C-alpha cells in the first residue's frame, strides 16, 4: 500500500474509532445507573425512590438543610394551619446549587406524581468553586458541558488567586463526565460486596427515615468543632455582630447564578411543583440570592438570615456552630419556616381565587 493511502486509511480508522467511542459512551450513559450507591445523595435518593409518590414537598440543600429542616415537625405545623404536606429532607453535605440541580434531575427521572413544592437553599454561588468533591460521582455528574461552562465563565470574571487551579479542576471533572468515568461504580461496588454501612444509612436518613439528622454529632471532627464552638461563645457573638453590620454590596447577581436558578425553576415546574427559595440562619451571607429576589428573578424567598429579626435562631443556645443549627435551633427554624410557608400558601391560594 502506498504511503499516502496508508495515512488516509489510518486517519479513517482513527475517526471510526472515535465515532464508535462516542456512540458507545452515549449508550453506556443511558444504561448505567446514577451514582456510586455509597454517597449520601445516593442513599437519600434510594430511600426516596420507593416512596416517591408519598411526598408532596422536597427540601434541597446542604448540611444546613440536613440539620435544620425537620420534616415531621414541619408537616405537623402545617397541618395545624390546614395545609397538608408530606415532606422529605434531601440535604446532602457540601451540596452546592449544581449538585442540587443534578439531584432534581434524578428526582425527575423517578417521575414522582405528588410533588407540589420544592424548597431550596442554594447557598453562596462562589462555593461551586470549592472543588474538593469534584471527582466524587456527584461532583462529576454536575460537570456537564453547560454547567461547567457557566462555572468557567464565572471564574473568568472572578478575582480569585486560585482561578486557574479551580478551572483545571472543573475541566478535569468535565472530562470525566464526558468520558463516563466511574459511571458503573454502582455495579462495581455491588460486585465487590460494598454497600453503605447501616450506621451510614442511619446517619443519612435520620431516625424517622425522612432525611433529617443530627447524628453528625457522632463524628469526631464535628464533635471537636462543636467543643470549640462551645468554648468560643464570646467569639461567636462577636462574629454575629460583624455579620449583622455587613451592608449589602451594590452588585447584580452573576448571570451564571441566575441561569442555574432559571434551570432549577424550570425543572421544578416540569415536575408540576412550585419552587420556594430559603435562606437559612448561618453566618454566611447570600447576597446574590437576595439580589436575585430583589430583581424579581426568583419568588418567593423566605429569609432567616437577619439576627435582629431571628435572634432566637442566632442565639448561641440554638447553634451547633456558626453555620449549623442544633436540635433546639432546628425546631425553632422549622416552626418559623412552616408558619411563613403556610402564610405564603394562603396568600397564593387567595390570589388565585
Amino acid at each position: 500500500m502506498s504511503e499516502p493511502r496508508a495515512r488516509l486509511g489510518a486517519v479513517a480508522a482513527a475517526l471510526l474509532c472515535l465515532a464508535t467511542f462516542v456512540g458507545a459512551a452515549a449508550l453506556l450513559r443511558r444504561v448505567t445507573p446514577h451514582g456510586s450507591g455509597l454517597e449520601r445523595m445516593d442513599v437519600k435518593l434510594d430511600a426516596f425512590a420507593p416512596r416517591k409518590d408519598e411526598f408532596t414537598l422536597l427540601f434541597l440543600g446542604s448540611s444546613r438543610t440536613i440539620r435544620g429542616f425537620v420534616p415531621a415537625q414541619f408537616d405537623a405545623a402545617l397541618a395545624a394551619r390546614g395545609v397538608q404536606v408530606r415532606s422529605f429532607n434531601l440535604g446532602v453535605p457540601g451540596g452546592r446549587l449544581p449538585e442540587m440541580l443534578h439531584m432534581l434531575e434524578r428526582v425527575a427521572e423517578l417521575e414522582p406524581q405528588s410533588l407540589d413544592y420544592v424548597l431550596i437553599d442554594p447557598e453562596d454561588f462562589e462555593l461551586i468553586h470549592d472543588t474538593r468533591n469534584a471527582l466524587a460521582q456527584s461532583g462529576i455528574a454536575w460537570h456537564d458541558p453547560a454547567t461547567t461552562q457557566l462555572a468557567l465563565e464565572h471564574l473568568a470574571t472572578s478575582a480569585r488567586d486560585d482561578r486557574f487551579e479551580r478551572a483545571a479542576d472543573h475541566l478535569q471533572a468535565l472530562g470525566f463526565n464526558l468520558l463516563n468515568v466511574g459511571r458503573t461504580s454502582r455495579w462495581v461496588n455491588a460486585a465487590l460486596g460494598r454497600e453503605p454501612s447501616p450506621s451510614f444509612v442511619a446517619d443519612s436518613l435520620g431516625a424517622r427515615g425522612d432525611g433529617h439528622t443530627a447524628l453528625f454529632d457522632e463524628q469526631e471532627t464535628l464533635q471537636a468543632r462543636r467543643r470549640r464552638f462551645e468554648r468560643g461563645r464570646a467569639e461567636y457573638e462577636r462574629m454575629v455582630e460583624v455579620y449583622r453590620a455587613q451592608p449589602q454590596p451594590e452588585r447584580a447577581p452573576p448571570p451564571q447564578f441566575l441561569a442555574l436558578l432559571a434551570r432549577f425553576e424550570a425543572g421544578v415546574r416540569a415536575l408540576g411543583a412550585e419552587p420556594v427559595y430559603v435562606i437559612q440562619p448561618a453566618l454566611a451571607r447570600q447576597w446574590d440570592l437576595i439580589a436575585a429576589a430583589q430583581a424579581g428573578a426568583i419568588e418567593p424567598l423566605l429569609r432567616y438570615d437577619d439576627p435582629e429579626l431571628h435572634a432566637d435562631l442566632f442565639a448561641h443556645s440554638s447553634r451547633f456552630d456558626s453555620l449549623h443549627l442544633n436540635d433546639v435551633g432546628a425546631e425553632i427554624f422549622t416552626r418559623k419556616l412552616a408558619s411563613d410557608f403556610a402564610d405564603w400558601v394562603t396568600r397564593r391560594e387567595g390570589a388565585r381565587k
Partner: protein
Amino acid sequence: MIFSELRFFVFFALAFGVHWALRSNTARKRWLLVCSYFFYGLWDWRFLGLIAGSTLLDYFAALRMRSSSSPRAWLLVSLVGNLGSLALFKYLDFFIESAAQLASALGFEPNLHTLGLILPVGISFYTFQTLSYSIDVYRRELEPVRRLDDFALFVSFFPQLVAGPIVRAVDFLPQLDTARVWRDVRVRACLTLFLVGFVKKACVSDNVVQLVDPYFAQPNAYDALGAWTATLFYAVQIYCDFSGYSDMAIAVSGLLGYELRVNFDFPYFAASIKEFWRRWHISLSSWLRDYLYIPLGGSRGSAWFARRNLMLTMLLGGLWHGAGWNFVIWGGLHGLALVVHRLWEESGRKLPAPLGMLLTFLWVCMAWIFFRASSLESAWTSVRSFVGFASPGELSWGWTPLATFAALAGAHALGATHAVGRWLERRSEAAYAMCYGASFAVAFAFSNGAVKPFIYFQF
C-alpha cells in the same frame, strides 16, 4: 502525571505528534529528552538536578573507564555516587530509626534525628539503570556512549522513567543510533497493550483498592473471610497496578518506535516460586541475578554458599522495594521459598503443576501481607487471619467479592491464552478501530474517578 490520567493523553498526543513530525533522528531524540524532563519535572522540578547529576556522573565515569588506567576507580565513583544518592534519599532515615530503636532496646537514650527527605520518584529505577550501564562498560560488555543527549535520554526516557521496566543500556542505546521508522511500529499491538494496561490499572486496581485499604487500616476489625478477601485482592491490586503500568509503558514506548522488554508474564500462573520470579518484574529479577546474585558467586561453590547467595539477593531485593523491615521480611520469605524450592528440586521429587501453582500463589499472597501492612504488628494480625483463619473482628464483605475474584481469575486465564489478542489481530482495520473505540468507552465507564498513583512510584 500518570498514564491513566486525562492530562497524560494530552501530553502524549503532543509528544507523539511532534516526535513523528520531526525528520531528523537527533531532533526526535532531543524532543523526547525535553518531554522526559518535563514529565519528571511535573512530579517535583527540584529533583531534575538529581537525575541530571546522576546522568552526568555515569556518562563521564563510563568514558573515563576507557581512557583511564584505573577503570575500577571510576566504577567505584559510579557505585558510590549512585548507591550514595539512593542511600541518602531512601535509606538513611530508615537506618537512623533502626539504630535508635536498637540503642533504646539496649538501654541507651540516643539523640538521633531523621532527615525527613522526600523520596525522589523513580530513583530506584533510574539508579539501577545507570548502575548496570557503568558495570557493563567496566566489564567491557558495552562501549561507553559518546553522545551525552543519547545517554540522558536512556536515563530519563519518560515511558519507563518512574516505575520501570528497568531498561538495560545494551537493549536501549543501539535503538537510538538509527532513526525510528513508523512502518516498523506495531501499532495495533501497542494500542491493544495500552488498553490492557489501562484496564488493569484504572478498572481493576483502582477499584479493588477499596476493599484492600479499609482492611489494612484496621485488620483487627475483620473476620477471616475479610482477611482472605483483602489479601487476595491485594494480590490482584499490586499485579494489575504494576503490570498495568508496565504494559502502558511498553505500549507508549513502542508507539514512539522504541521497544522495551516484557516485564510480567502471568506470574500468578507460575508452578513454582522460581518460575514466579522469572515471570514477575522480570527486569528487576534479571537485574538482581546479573548484578548481585552472580557476582556474589551464584550457584557456584557449595550448596550452602548458593543458598546464602539466594537469601542475600532476595533480602536486598526486598530492601530495594522500600526502606522498612516489612520489605526485608517480604524478601526473606521469598528467599526462604526459593531455598526450599531448590532443596525440593535437589530431592528429585515433583509436584503436580496445579498444586504447585496453588501453593506458590498462596505463599506469594501471604508474603504480600508484609509488603502491604502498615506495621509488623498489623501484618502479624493479618497473617494469623489468613493462615490460621482467626477472626479478630466481625467486619466482612461476605462471599460476593470472592465470586468477583474468581471471575477476574477466569478473565486472566483467558488473557494468558492470548486468544483475544490474536482474534483482534485478525480483524480488518475498520473492525479493529470500532472494537478499540467501544472497548475504551467501556473501560472509562469502569474506571475509578479518584486517580491513584501507581504503587511502584513509591519505590
